[in-house]
């Protein structure tokens, strides 16, 4: 479409036809306040704070939904507009419970910021004081309907971005309520606790439990990093105050997930109740003694040297830099704790192009959840189709039009071939089935997730084999925040003469280890990891921990063992 010319606040410019007045304002460098609008979702004009005066229009119009036309003349700061916005703010404030002094979001609230901007020193209207509930049935965050302004950002992200469509509304007008599913408690709904709604809520309606009252906008800093919860590699913003990560948010500007996170990335580490390893710990019979690094490292060197065969087990939570140090400085066998699958993979971005998904042997509502969101929104909004090739239950089943067992994969090949842009999604669990399908449908693109965040990076550093019982009797386990091990690995460690572990948490190591060395979590280390799509993504330490970094500890140990 050709450009159209518009004049906004006396500034004339040419803008693409079809865009909204709000977008046109932004292109011309004119700021218009918004509340219900969010760049990641479709505008609906719910809150009316962006009202502008458009010549030849009967009434003020919401800039976020009104399209530009040629010759349009807009005023965004006329007295009429400012009065209308103050009126809108007063209506919003007098509707429910918008008393800032006892709200956890005071200081981080868009509604409050706007009221300050518009000099609102009192409200002219009587307050309604409706008695609405607080829904605290979810583990990580609370919905206080009394603080809600019905902007529906939560409803829209749940539908448009996450594809889950748990949230909706009931009743109309001022009586409208945000509900989950058919009006059940949020904790009993189809909510997947990804927290995207929490992140976009402009008021105190959705409040994070862990960071409540922990720091307002001007008291916090933000550090961009990468989530190592799985091999997708979502960009995170770590919200830090006084040397503590108080909250994790998705980074809207970071590929591949553009702001989306799942329950694991946003909440799991924050709510991990295991004991941290703060100082090196050495087993003393049944109990543990804390020692300094020097003592601990010599104890580890001694234990490993005393064994007949040493093996270093590395978790995929280890950075490329640490993997390089392990490969170059430590003697003996080095293996990954998880399965090593190195198939080439498209990135998450490609999932929004596919018109048919074939998910083979993996449940994307459990692992790599953000990829599951891409499939759900594809099915809901683009008419993409989903075939599950999986034995047993799969959380994506409600979105699938067909599910077949792994041994029946060949039966769907015709349907897959018929699609224009089919995509096969798999991980290590059923890689051979997926590969044979990809071979049969040449045009299919593939997304193959690895076992851990940095499986590919470890392999590139030379640690390319997965765990196998190989008769080793002295182990160094570079574990990070790993919480569970396969029985196979556990029994090998139990049988070994000596086990040293570099870990963020004491559990599950206290039963098998002889020495436990501290290791930073994903929030505390800098470096890179190589995601499933082969892209190196950067980790930035939001918090510095005391003692040796993971790389320094490995290098010093290497020197002792040399």
């Amino acid at each position, binding site marked *: 479409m050709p450009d159209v010319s518009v004049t906004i606040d006396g500034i004339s410019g040419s803008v693409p036809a079809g865009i909204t007045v709000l977008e046109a304002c932004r292109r011309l460098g004119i700021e218009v306040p918004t509340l219900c609008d969010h760049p990641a979702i479709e505008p609906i004009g719910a809150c009316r704070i962006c009202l502008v005066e458009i010549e030849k229009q009967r009434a003020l119009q919401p800039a976020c939904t009104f399209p530009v036309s040629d010759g349009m003349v807009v005023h965004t700061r006329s007295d009429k507009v400012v009065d209308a916005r103050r009126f809108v703010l007063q209506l919003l*404030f007098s509707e429910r*419970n918008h*008393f*800032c*002094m*006892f*709200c956890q979001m*005071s*200081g981080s609230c868009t509604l*409050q910021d706007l*009221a*300050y901007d518009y*000099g609102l*020193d*009192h*409200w002219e209207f*009587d*307050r309604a*004081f409706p*008695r609405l509930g607080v829904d605290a049935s979810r583990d990580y965050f609370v919905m206080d309907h*009394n603080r809600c302004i019905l902007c529906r950002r939560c409803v829209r992200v749940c539908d448009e971005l996450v594809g889950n469509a748990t949230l909706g509304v009931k009743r109309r007008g001022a009586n409208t309520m945000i509900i989950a599913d058919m009006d059940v408690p949020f904790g009993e709904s189809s909510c997947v606790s990804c927290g995207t709604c929490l992140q976009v809520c402009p008021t105190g309606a959705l409040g994070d439990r862990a960071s409540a009252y922990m720091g307002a906008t001007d008291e916090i800093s933000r550090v961009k990093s990468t989530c190592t919860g799985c091999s997708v590699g979502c960009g995170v913003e770590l919200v830090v105050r006084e040397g503590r990560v108080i909250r994790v948010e998705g980074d809207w500007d970071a590929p591949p997930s553009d702001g989306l996170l799942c329950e694991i990335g946003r909440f799991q580490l924050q709510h991990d109740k295991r004991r941290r390893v703060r100082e090196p710990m050495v087993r003393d019979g049944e109990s543990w003694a804390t020692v300094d690094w020097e003592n601990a490292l010599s104890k580890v060197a001694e234990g490993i040297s005393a064994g007949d065969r040493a093996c270093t087990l590395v978790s995929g939570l280890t950075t490329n830099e640490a993997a390089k140090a392990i490969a170059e400085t430590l003697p003996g066998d080095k293996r990954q704790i998880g399965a090593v699958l190195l198939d080439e993979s498209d990135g998450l971005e490609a999932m929004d192009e596919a018109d048919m998904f074939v998910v083979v042997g993996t449940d994307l509502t459990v692992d790599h959840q953000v990829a599951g969101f891409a499939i759900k929104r594809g099915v809901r909004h683009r008419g993409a189709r989903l075939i599950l090739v999986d034995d047993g239950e799969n959380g994506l089943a409600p979105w699938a039009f067909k599910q077949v067992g792994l041994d029946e994969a060949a039966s769907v090949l015709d349907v897959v071939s018929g699609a224009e842009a089919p995509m096969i999604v798999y991980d290590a669990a059923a890689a051979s089935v997926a590969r044979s399908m990809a071979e049969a449908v040449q045009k299919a693109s593939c997304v193959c997730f690895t076992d851990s965040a940095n499986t590919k990076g470890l392999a590139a550093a030379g640690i390319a084999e997965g765990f196998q019982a190989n008769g080793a009797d002295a182990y160094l386990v570079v574990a990070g925040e790993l919480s569970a091990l396969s029985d196979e690995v556990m029994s090998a460690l139990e049988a070994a003469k000596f086990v040293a572990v570099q870990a963020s948490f004491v559990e599950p190591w206290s039963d098998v280890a002889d020495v436990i060395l501290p290791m930073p979590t994903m929030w505390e280390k800098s470096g890179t990891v190589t995601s499933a799509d082969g892209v190196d993504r950067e980790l930035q330490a939001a918090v510095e921990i005391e003692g040796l970094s993971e790389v320094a500890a490995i290098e010093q140990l290497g020197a002792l063992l040399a």
Partner: protein
Amino acid sequence: MGKVTLCSDWLDVCSGCHMSLLDIDERIIELTKHVQILSSPITDLKHPPEEGCDVGILTGAVSNDHQEHVARTMRERCKVLIAVGDCAVTGGICTMRNFFDVEDVLERGYVETESTDENQQVPRSPEIAKLFPQVKAVDQVVKVDLHIPGCPPPADALWYAITELLAGRTPVLTDDLLTYD
């Protein structure tokens, strides 16, 4: 010209707003050069004299019939009435009880609270002011000429407002002087 006369009083309030007024610190000496404080919770005279005053300050929300009487008296006896603090301006933290029935609030406060002794009763003496069903802001009871929100308002906001009024201008709170918490 003589000094401007000022009276202040408090309603349903934690007294933090008067604390904030005292937080103008040594500027209070400058203030007394231009202003004579006739009555306040911290002077001998607690309520505005019948002769009236130029400026009246009310802090706190209107929660009961006594407070309504105090608010009306102040309004009648002052020329310019300033509502100071969130409770006076919007009802503030006092409005937390507006989401419950008054009887439930009294039961909770006097009987059910974990720290309350056994066999406690809700006091019902006719001497005690009667709670309204809903807490109100001052401007829902009497006309208010100037609002200074904040919990409490910064001392600088109060100083700014008073000096602007003394200079014959209408104070307009902006930036750090306008706050709701």
